[in-house]
C-alpha cells in the first residue's frame, strides 16, 4: 500500500478527529473502515481532511463520517460493540455444515481431482451403515440449531443406499431434538434415475451439481468414459427444475444450483460460462478459483494460473453478470454476494471459509468414508494426499466436545483470527474477510500463512477492491442490483419436518 497520502503532510497529527480506522487506496479513492465494519469510500482530498481533522463540521462529509461512527468526538462505543457482536454472531454455535464423504468412488475423472476419488471397483471406499450412523450421532450433538448434511464423494449416488439410510436415520434421530435439519447432495447427476430422483424429492434433499462452463469445456475437464458428462447432467438439471415447478415451488428459490471450478482454460471463456449458467436456469454462479488440494504437481501447471489473470476474469465476468441483471436476468455471483452481505448489511452470512475465526472444526466438519473426522473437506483432501494434520477424530471413538476443542482446531481458530495476522491487522477488509488454515498450510507451509504471499488473500483483496470501487462509482440501478444480491431468502422447503407427517 502506498503511504503517499500519509507522507504528504503532518501525517499523524490528526487532531484527534478520526476514531480507530484502517484504510486502503483503490485507484484514486481510499476505502476507510472501522473495527466493527462501518465503511466509507473517500477521495484522496477528503481522506487527507479526515486524517487531519480538517472537515467542515457543518458539511455533508462530517455528517457522513458521524453516521458511520468514524469520528472520535461522537464515537458511539455501545453501537460499535453491538455491531461487532452482530458480525461475530456465529461464534455462539458449533458446526452447522457437516460434509459426509459417503464414498470415494466416482465414474467421472476430473483434471483437478485426484485425491478425492477412486475407481468404481474400489468398494472399500464406501462408507458403511455403521460409520454413517455414528457420524450422524455426532452431528446431532452440535450446539448449532441449524444442521446441513452435505453428501459428497466421490459421487454420492454410487453409494445411494447409505445416503438414503443417513437421511432416514438423521431425520428420525432429530425428531426429539428439533434442529433445523437440511440435506444437500453434490452430484454429477450422471448416475441419476427416476426412482432415485423421486426418493430425493420426496425426502427434500437439495440437489447441487458441478458445471465447469459450456459443454466443450465441461466435457474436457470432467471426463466420463465414452460419454459427454455435460449431456449426462444437463437434462437432469432441467428435469429437477421442472419437478420443483410441478410441486408448486417458486423457481427463483428452488432450482438446481451448480458449482464451477475455474481452471486456466476457464479464464478466457468467462462470457460463455455465465451464459451457460443462465441457460441452465441457475441463479447463482460461484467463480471459485481452483484450490490447491487434491491434484498432482503435474496437473497444477495445466489448471493453475496467476492470480491477476483470475482477478481480470472475475471483473469481466461480474461486470457481465451485472449487465445481464440490468436486462432482467436474475443471477448473482456468490463471492460478491458474500462480501456485499457483510459490507452492506452488517451481518455475516457465516460462509465458513470467509470468516474470522474460520469455520474449520467449529463451524464445519467433514466425515470421511472410513470414519475419520476432519476439520473441513479441504483438511480431508490433504488427509487423502497423505498429510494427516487436519484429522481430528474418529466417529467410533471421539466425543463431540473433544472434536470441536481438539488442539488442531484450537490452533486453527487462533491462526484464522485476522486480528492476530500481520497485514490483516492493517487491512480495511478485515471485518469482512477470512483466511483458511488448510490453504495456508498447503501453500505456505504454516497454518498462519503469510498474507502477502497468499493467493487466497490476493483473491479476497482483489474482489473487495472491485466491490468497493463499484459501491463508490456505480449508478443507482447497479447499486440496487448489488443490494438485491445480499437478500437471503430461506429455502423453507428443504428443512426436514420434525414431527411425524409435519
Amino acid at each position: 500500500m502506498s503511504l503517499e497520502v500519509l507522507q504528504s503532510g503532518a501525517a499523524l497529527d490528526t487532531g484527534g478527529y478520526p476514531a480507530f480506522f484502517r484504510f486502503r487506496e483503490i485507484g484514486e479513492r481510499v476505502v476507510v473502515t472501522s473495527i466493527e465494519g462501518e465503511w466509507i469510500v473517500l477521495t484522496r482530498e477528503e481522506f487527507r481532511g479526515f486524517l487531519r481533522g480538517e472537515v467542515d463540521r457543518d458539511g455533508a462529509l462530517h455528517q457522513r463520517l458521524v453516521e458511520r461512527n468514524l469520528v472520535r468526538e461522537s464515537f458511539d462505543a455501545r453501537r460499535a460493540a453491538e455491531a461487532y457482536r452482530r458480525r461475530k454472531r456465529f461464534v455462539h454455535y458449533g458446526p452447522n455444515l457437516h460434509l459426509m464423504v459417503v464414498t470415494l468412488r466416482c465414474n467421472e475423472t476430473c483434471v483437478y481431482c485426484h485425491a478425492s476419488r477412486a475407481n468404481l471397483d474400489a468398494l472399500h471406499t464406501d462408507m458403511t451403515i455403521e460409520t454413517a450412523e455414528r457420524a450422524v450421532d455426532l452431528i446431532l450433538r452440535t450446539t448449532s440449531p441449524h444442521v446441513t448434511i452435505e453428501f459428497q464423494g466421490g459421487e454420492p449416488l454410487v453409494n445411494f443406499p447409505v445416503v438414503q439410510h443417513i437421511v432416514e436415520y438423521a431425520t428420525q434421530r432429530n425428531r426429539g431434538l428439533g434442529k433445523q435439519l437440511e440435506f444437500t447432495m453434490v452430484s454429477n447427476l450422471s448416475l441419476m434415475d427416476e426412482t432415485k430422483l423421486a426418493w430425493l424429492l420426496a425426502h427434500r434433499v437439495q440437489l447441487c451439481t458441478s458445471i465447469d462452463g459450456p459443454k466443450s469445456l465441461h466435457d474436457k475437464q470432467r471426463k466420463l468414459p465414452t460419454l459427454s458428462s455435460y449431456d449426462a447432467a444437463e437434462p437432469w438439471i432441467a428435469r429437477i427444475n421442472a419437478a420443483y415447478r410441478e410441486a408448486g415451488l417458486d423457481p427463483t428459490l428452488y432450482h438446481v444450483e451448480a458449482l464451477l471450478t475455474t481452471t486456466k482454460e476457464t479464464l478466457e471463456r468467462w462470457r460463455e460460462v455465465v451464459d451457460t449458467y443462465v441457460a441452465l436456469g441457475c441463479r447463482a454462479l460461484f467463480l471459485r478459483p481452483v484450490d490447491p488440494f487434491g491434484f498432482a504437481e503435474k496437473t497444477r501447471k495445466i489448471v493453475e494460473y496467476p492470480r491477476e489473470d483470475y482477478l481480470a476474469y472475475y471483473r469481466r465476468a461480474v461486470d457481465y453478470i451485472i449487465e445481464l441483471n440490468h436486462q432482467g436476468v436474475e443471477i448473482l455471483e456468490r463471492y460478491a454476494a458474500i462480501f456485499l452481505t457483510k459490507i452492506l448489511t452488517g451481518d455475516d452470512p457465516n460462509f465458513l471459509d470467509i470468516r474470522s475465526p474460520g469455520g474449520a472444526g467449529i463451524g464445519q466438519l467433514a466425515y470421511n468414508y472410513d470414519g475419520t473426522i476432519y476439520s473441513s473437506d479441504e483438511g480431508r483432501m490433504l488427509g487423502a494426499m497423505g498429510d494427516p494434520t487436519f484429522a481430528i477424530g474418529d466417529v467410533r471413538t471421539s466425543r463431540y466436545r473433544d472434536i470441536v476443542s481438539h488442539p488442531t482446531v484450537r490452533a486453527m481458530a487462533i491462526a484464522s483470527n485476522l486480528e492476530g495476522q500481520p497485514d490483516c491487522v492493517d487491512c480495511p477488509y478485515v471485518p469482512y474477510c477470512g483466511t483458511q488454515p488448510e490453504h495456508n498450510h498447503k501453500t505456505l507451509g504454516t497454518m498462519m500463512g503469510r498474507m502477502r504471499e497468499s493467493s487466497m488473500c490476493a483473491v479476497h483483496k482483489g474482489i473487495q477492491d472491485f466491490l468497493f470501487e463499484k459501491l463508490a462509482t456505480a449508478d443507482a440501478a447497479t447499486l440496487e442490483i448489488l443490494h438485491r444480491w445480499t437478500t437471503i431468502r430461506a429455502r423453507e422447503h428443504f428443512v426436514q419436518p420434525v414431527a411425524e407427517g409435519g
Partner: protein
Amino acid sequence: MSESLLGMPPARVLADLGEGCVILTVDASMYPQHAVYAAAYCFIARCYVWLDRAEPEAFRVVLTAKQPTDAEGLRALAGEFSNELLASAWRREITRLNRGLIESVTMQAFGGAMGPPSLDDLEAFDFSDEPFDDPLGIAQSWEDKYRKPKPGAETGAETGAAVAAETDPQGGAAT
C-alpha cells in the same frame, strides 16, 4: 565452502552448495527466540533445521534441503525463511497488542461450539479420583521436602563439595 547468494547480504546469509544448506545469521535484538522457533517449526517438514548461537546477540540458523537443490533453491529457502521469521516476530507483537480481542472471540467460539458438558462427558469423569493419604509427607518430591531448587533452576555444574554436602541427608533436611 560457503558462498554468498544473489541478492542476499553475505554477512547474514551464506550458502554451502556442497552440503545443500544455507546459513542465516539472525540478529537476536531484532528477532526474539520465539520468533526463530516459530519460523523454524514451519520449516522442519521441508528441510533440516539447525539452530545455534553464533554469538551472544545472534542466532545461527542452518537450513539443509532434504532433497538435492541448487543455488536458486537455497536462495528461495533463505528468502522464505526470512519472510516467515519476520511474520512470526510481527505476529507475536500483534497478538500481544490484540490479545483481549482475540481471546474473547476465540473463547466464545469454543464455548459456543462445545456447549455444556453432557451426561456422556460426565460419565467419563472419575469423581472417586482421590490420592492416598500421606500423613508423613513421604510422597513429597525431594526438592519440595528438602526445599531444594528444581533441577532447571540450578546454575553451573555440581562440585564435589556440593555432593558431599548434599549426600548428608540430615544436612539436607535441616536446610
